[in-house]
């Protein structure tokens, strides 16, 4: 296993380098200039061209693009993503502030997705063609097709504006610091409910449909029939034999969700004013904040590669027919 993982990690290095190289040049080829920030007559501080040139020099933007690229790669190899043009602060600090918020959101959303999606998929498959199956099938289709931003706004209107039960946005209340420990926990949960629900439920709808179909396939397999013929209780047959096998491809899906964990959810983070990676990325793209764009892209690329690797490892672990050498056992 270790040898296989090491090989995959080595193979990932040129892949990663390729991704960030293409991104580096694409971002710089895109229209727009980070220095536009200082040319806007709306703003109070418009700078002389000489001052803008000084700032350009300070950030190395006056140098040939291949020189900029070489410097960037050298700095990243040392773990330094540079300084944000917009925030004038080290990108590493911005990431350190944003990542915990994104993780809160995405880990809970993935858990909700797994819990609800897999459960509903199992129920729908086990009770195929029942009323419950039809409700789950149609409901998951509707939710899956529903735009996340629309669902988010509708929930805000209902639970925050009309009912006043939940906050409209942000991560905690103003008086959070003065709450008891349980009060703080409740306050955090209340702020998490809507964004986690919106993120999780849309994914859960897809998971439920996938799980249902996979489980139906597995339930018709001979070994399931054999298990039933041996007199195992139906609950054991489904949970121990069928579900475990039906889950194997879903492991791959969750492995590929790894970039989402740190990449964040741009629209949901914006709607709920959640100060995570998604919002940081959107702001960076809008402001042509190259160091931040490159940092978030590099992280997303690395996580995608890592997610693939983990999914492959988990797949082989869950399915004894798959070997690390790439040969399928009989």
């Amino acid at each position, binding site marked *: 296993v270790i040898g296989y993982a090491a090989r995959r990690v080595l193979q990932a290095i040129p892949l990663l380098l390729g991704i960030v190289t293409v991104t580096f040049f694409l971002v710089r080829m895109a*229209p*727009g*200039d980070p220095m*536009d920030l200082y*040319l*806007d*007559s*709306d*703003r*109070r*501080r*418009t*700078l002389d061209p000489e*001052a*803008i040139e*000084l*700032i350009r020099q300070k950030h190395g933007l006056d140098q040939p693009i291949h020189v900029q690229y070489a410097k960037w790669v050298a700095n990243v190899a040392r773990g330094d993503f540079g300084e944000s043009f*917009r*925030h*004038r*602060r080290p990108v590493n600090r911005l990431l350190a*502030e944003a990542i915990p*918020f994104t993780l809160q959101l995405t880990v809970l959303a993935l858990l*909700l997705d797994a*819990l*609800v999606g897999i*459960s*509903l998929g199992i*129920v729908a498959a086990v009770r195929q063609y029942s009323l419950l199956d039809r409700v789950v099938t149609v409901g998951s289709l509707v939710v899956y097709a529903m735009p996340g931003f629309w669902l988010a*706004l509708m929930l*805000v209107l209902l*639970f*925050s*504006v009309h*009912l*006043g*039960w*939940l*906050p*409209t*946005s*942000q*991560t*905690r*209340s*103003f008086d*959070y*610091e003065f709450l008891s420990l349980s009060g703080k926990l*409740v306050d955090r*949960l*209340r702020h998490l*409910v809507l964004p986690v*629900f919106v993120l999780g*439920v849309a994914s859960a709808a897809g998971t439920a449909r996938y799980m249902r179909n996979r489980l139906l396939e597995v339930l018709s397999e001979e070994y399931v029939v054999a298990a039933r013929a041996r007199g195992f209780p139906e609950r054991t047959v489904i949970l121990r034999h069928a579900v475990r096998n039906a889950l194997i491809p879903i492991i791959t899906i969750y492995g590929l969700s790894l970039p989402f964990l740190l990449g964040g959810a741009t629209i949901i983070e914006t*709607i*709920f*004013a959640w*100060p995570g990676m998604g*919002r940081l990325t959107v702001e960076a793209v*809008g402001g042509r904040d190259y160091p931040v764009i490159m940092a978030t892209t590099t992280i997303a690329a690395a996580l995608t590669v890592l997610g693939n690797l983990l999914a492959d490892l988990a797949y082989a672990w869950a399915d004894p027919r798959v070997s690390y050498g790439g040969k399928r056992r009989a």
Partner: protein
Amino acid sequence: VASPRILLTAIVLPAAAGCDRGPGSDPDTLVLLYESDEWVLGPSNDDSPKFLVFLPLADSNWRCWGRERWEAERGWPPPGVARSWERSGDGRVWTVRLREDVRWHDGVPVTAQDVAFSLELWKDPDVGWYAGAPVASVEVLDGHTVRFTLERPGDWPLQGWEVFLPRHLLEALPRDEFFTWDFWRQPVGNGPFRYVRHVPGVMIEFEANPDYVGGRPGVDRLVLRLSSALPLTELLSGRVDVAPISPLDALKLAGDPRFRLRFSASSTAVWLFWNLRRPPFDDPAVRRALTHAVDRRALHGALGYPEGLPLTDGIYDWCAFYREELAEPVPYDPVEAVRLLEVAGWADADGGGVRVRDGRPLRFELVLEDRYLPAGVVLQDQLRRIGAAVTLTSVEQSIVNRRFLAGDFDAAIPRRSGLMETFGEGSPFGYENPRVAELLRARRTAVEDAEREAIGRELGEITRAELPALFLFPRTTTWAARSRVGGLERLYESGNMMGVEHLRLEPESR
């Protein structure tokens, strides 16, 4: 099977733990919505609400109006550390006398040394701020008098770095760490509100500064809610008292007794630029016809702006804007527009609705950013009525500006830079008038007010005659406030929140 129940519990239980009353329901706290959540008071945020905490040297309008007119118009004294100022005959030396009763929030008096220190700080290459007027030197004459010498004659020397910093707190800090000083997270200012605490991504809390030179602010506690969420939902849910909203959102709140609206126009305007290097915009008659064809009052109404928004044509001086001395705009007159086009040879011969001259249709592309798309749709409709076909291209702001600066457009609504760069030599939209370029240069170094005003008048006359660009509307901030908020008419500066100290919570609503 249990999952739906768990899901429902996850939603309902936390909610049941206590309905979210929202901070906006606190009778003693005024809550303002502020979109940014990063370094709100820091130096890298140009639109920061810094005037909550810091006093400017002198407010822009005060410089235009003079103290007497300011007080007569506004009914309260102008904010600022400066008491008075005078300039030398050549316009290079400015001597500014400071008020002696202004103190930092820690009780230390604000002195000329603070002003000199701040200027030195802004210009220090280690700091890397690069902003500021071309000030060659600054000299402290006494504890409350400071003299600036400019590199060239010019206007008010302190554009761009109007906020002064406490020397006694910052002198010893490393300058190469300027942007990460803790001071920006816990600023000690000299303005109407004192910093209390900052919860990143959530809020900044302030308390009234009882020693504020402009008098005690109208509210004891002020909270900036840092949220990029939709302002309308924040207002409707009662979580904020005051929020800047879009004019179109203002239409939704108009007539709702729970809210009050305030429109505050700034002296900068949104312009539509014709590309004068391309036909048909190289023909002044066509430009005049198109200007006559646009009903700008109707445009303002459609966009949710109030009636009576300042409107003009041609270049104007910002002081003329604040003094309400703008020249009359070209009137809306579609009949005259059609006549001018007919005379210029543009005719709708085939009745297809689009005028044609020499086989070339009166059809052009208007490049604009998303936020101006509603305005573009109204313009498209109004111009269609006189036989001009407009295609709208909506792209992000930086692309509009790039295309504008490269001359790659027919018509565009960019965010322009200064007048000199836009209308002077090398104009990106092809405006070439040597006299205008000369006047713009002279305007930059004009010393006397009368001279500046005379230059402004001539610039206005020339550009109103030539109509190289179409004035659409002044940039306007639309504020919405819950009905419990009084003093909204005194809120006049958008990003920097000038005038917030005049807001109050109405006693009857408590």
